[in-house]
């Protein structure tokens, strides 16, 4: 327990799904108070609060939360970083503690997305009455749908197809089978938004959204929140044995954006920044992909999961299809991926996701994952990516004591 290590002392995730009678502050409060209780600490001990709620990014969710659970005057950082918002909040708390400015910090992510429908690129508006060039492309009409697609299912469909073009071996059925795996995993997760198992045929015959992604192959819009208490190694050493025993070490905390490459402003390149983040995280943690007992990666669409096997270096470059076909990413395989059910089945309340996947890994490392426990898990990785782009990778390790 080196004094300069950073740890998760307490962590909590709400049930994901429809919470019609709770607002974002209710959900954030439930997650935050759950994380504090889990760590055996209170708001009075927090030195910093980092909070994210992407759909209400200008509303100051951090201060709204303080007004319900404790206005202690500490600095609040409200963050927004697309689907990496939760990971960004966690990393802000981590950096504050790492720098020595705070002994403990709280990170919270919350979203209400039930019934949000299709998430598009957002640029599509009504046509003008006259063709007038506007914007950075001098476009006389909205380009989404006329010059390719900005819808998320369509963008990520192309990302999976591009991988298939480069390395071969992909098919509609292969992507559907990735989705089948995650939906099957979710049946063991009581906090998942959906716990329904689908056959490959059911997945392929469901409503087509953007080929090859059908509806169950897309992340599930839902409500939820997650929160974590971060603590310095020095502070942790002063706490009770029970608190120390359940603490989970943050061996690596990394955030990257995409370096310029040909085509990256034409179709988002989610590969290079993920690969860069993974490489930095493995270096920081002093572990390799071979050491990971489980991985929660950003399967916002079935087509995305495939490319991230490769980007996180769980397989040799170009080997993602073989990796999947080997059964490795199944919960009984050699490298279980998304045993929570992933974004496709557990759900994707955007700003909560980057802390919820850390909760999933931490829960296995603590040996508290119940029916879905990966036996004797010691090291795990949590990955998120937000288009724009931002990639967060956290590597977590079980306490040695």
């Amino acid at each position, binding site marked *: 327990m080196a004094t300069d290590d950073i740890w998760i002392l307490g962590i909590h995730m709400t049930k994901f799904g429809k919470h019609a009678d709770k607002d974002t502050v209710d959900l954030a409060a439930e997650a935050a108070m759950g994380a504090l209780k889990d760590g055996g600490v209170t708001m009075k001990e927090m030195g910093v609060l980092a909070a994210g709620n992407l759909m209400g990014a200008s509303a100051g969710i951090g201060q709204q939360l303080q007004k319900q659970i404790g206005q202690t005057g500490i600095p609040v950082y409200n963050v927004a970083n697309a689907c990496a918002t939760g990971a960004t909040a966690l990393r802000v708390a981590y950096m504050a503690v790492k720098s020595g400015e705070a002994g403990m910090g709280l990170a919270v992510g919350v979203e209400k997305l039930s019934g949000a429908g299709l998430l598009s690129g957002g640029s599509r508006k009504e046509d003008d009455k006259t063709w007038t060039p506007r914007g950075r492309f001098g476009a006389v009409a909205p380009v989404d749908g006329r010059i390719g*697609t900005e819808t998320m299912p369509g963008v990520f469909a192309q990302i999976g*197809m591009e991988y298939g073009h480069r390395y071969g071996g992909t098919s509609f059925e292969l992507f559907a089978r990735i989705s089948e795996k995650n939906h099957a995993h979710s049946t063991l997760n009581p906090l998942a938004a959906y716990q329904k198992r689908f056959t490959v045929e059911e997945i392929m015959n469901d409503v087509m959204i953007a080929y090859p992604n059908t509806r169950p192959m897309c992340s599930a819009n839902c409500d939820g929140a997650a929160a974590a208490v971060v603590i310095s190694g020095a502070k942790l050493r002063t706490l009770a044995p029970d608190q120390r025993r359940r603490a989970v070490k943050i061996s690596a905390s990394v955030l990257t954006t995409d370096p310029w490459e040909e085509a990256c402003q034409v*179709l988002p390149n989610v590969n290079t920044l993920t690969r860069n983040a993974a490489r930095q995280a493995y270096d920081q943690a002093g572990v390799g992909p071979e050491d990971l007992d489980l991985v929660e990666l950003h399967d916002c669409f079935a087509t995305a999961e495939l490319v991230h096997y490769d980007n996180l270096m769980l397989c040799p470059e170009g080997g993602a299809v073989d990796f999947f076909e080997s059964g490795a990413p199944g919960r009984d395989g050699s490298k279980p991926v998304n045993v929570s059910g992933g974004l496709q089945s557990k759900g994707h309340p955007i700003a909560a996701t980057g802390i919820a996947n850390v909760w999933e890994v931490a829960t296995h490392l603590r040996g508290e994952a119940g029916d879905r426990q990966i036996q004797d898990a010691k090291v795990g990785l949590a990955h998120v990516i937000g288009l724009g782009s931002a990639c967060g990778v956290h590597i977590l390790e079980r306490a040695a004591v």
Partner: protein
Amino acid sequence: MTEQVPLVDYLVIGDDPHLVATECTGCGARFFDRRNACASCSGTQFTSRPVATTGELKAFTIVAFAAPGIPVPFVAGVVDCEGTSVRANLINLPPDPEHVKLGMKVKLATYSLGADEAGTEAVGFGFEPLA
């Protein structure tokens, strides 16, 4: 003759329709939007370069749910035009996986978006199979 305007300013219409990229004179990075500086090398000198009108389809999707006013299904994709990647719809082919194949050779084609209240016709572009 009806006056025509391109859908975007990087589309050149007329007898020889083609796309024009904004190329950084320092590093050769190509862009299609108005630039403040180069995203690759931060240089500020640019020149215009015509983009090849034929290419290879390196990624696609068939969009079934889209924004209001966009007919579905349609094929969206990325075409590798001799080293310059272009985002576009695939047009003049049935929008199904039997007719759209990764690696297929395609060429630029234009189409009318219709006339506005002043009678000006907007011209869009897509890529169609290279027969």
